[in-house]
């Protein structure tokens, strides 16, 4: 029979020193989720500059959309924020895959190790993506 585990209300964050891997995975998944959904709203707001673009201006790349996106990409801080976003997204994806397995009851006895693996893989993917994200015209 399927069983659900009632964890109750959120843990007391004052006891953070006692948290184990699973709790940190839970906290990081929530945190990265909040960041991603916040970014989604911001992303659609920025992309809204595509509404009502003048075709003549678009042909010479002086339209609002192109100017806004290329202008943002020209800022070093935006490049670093994008690297941060990549880190957040990759961790959320990898830990999300881990959670899907946990939901199926698979790998419960290695859920600590799979959390550490998610962290290490996130770091490796982020580091290997740095040249791409920092490359191009600034």
């Amino acid at each position, binding site marked *: *029979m*399927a*069983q*659900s*585990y009632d*964890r109750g*209300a*959120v843990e007391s964050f004052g006891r953070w020193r006692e948290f184990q891997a699973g709790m940190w995975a839970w906290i990081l998944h*929530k945190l990265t*989720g*909040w960041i*991603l*959904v916040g970014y*989604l*709203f911001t992303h*659609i707001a920025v*992309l*809204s500059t*595509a*509404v*009502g*673009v003048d075709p003549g201006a*678009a*042909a010479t*790349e002086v*339209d609002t*959309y*192109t100017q806004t*996106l*290329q202008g943002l*990409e*020209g800022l070093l801080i935006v490049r670093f924020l*994008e690297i941060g976003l*990549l880190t957040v*997204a990759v961790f959320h*994806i990898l830990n*999300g*895959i881990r*959670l*899907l397995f*946990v*939901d*199926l*009851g698979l790998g*419960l006895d290695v859920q600590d190790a799979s959390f550490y693996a998610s962290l290490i893989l996130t770091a490796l993917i982020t580091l290997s*993506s740095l040249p*791409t*994200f920092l*490359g*191009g*015209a*600034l």
Partner: protein
Amino acid sequence: MAKHYSSFERGNWRWFLQRITAIFLIGALAFHFVTLHFINHAADISFLGTQARMSEIGYFSLMVTFLVAGAFHGVNGVYNGLVNAGLEGRQKQIVGTILIIATLLLIGQGLRVAVAMTTLF
């Protein structure tokens, strides 16, 4: 026999949709990053380039599905987090309603943007 474990509760469609959208988003988010950072460098993005991609029916429908799935998964995740933190009663109803309105507005504006980016219509 070992006890079967699952966090599923019968009849909980939001639980099910959260997992289905998660599986879709794993691929869609990875594809989005690869397409718009590695294949097409973000610094070189232009309206005409975006329009060319969004005028392909496969890419357009993938992006629209990505928008709807991402909006549901994200906002439902926020709602779950708040309920988990103790949100209940009238507050839960009000927050739920606000989040539903925010999701519909996000999807509506996203569709408006998607239509502005394509020559399909």
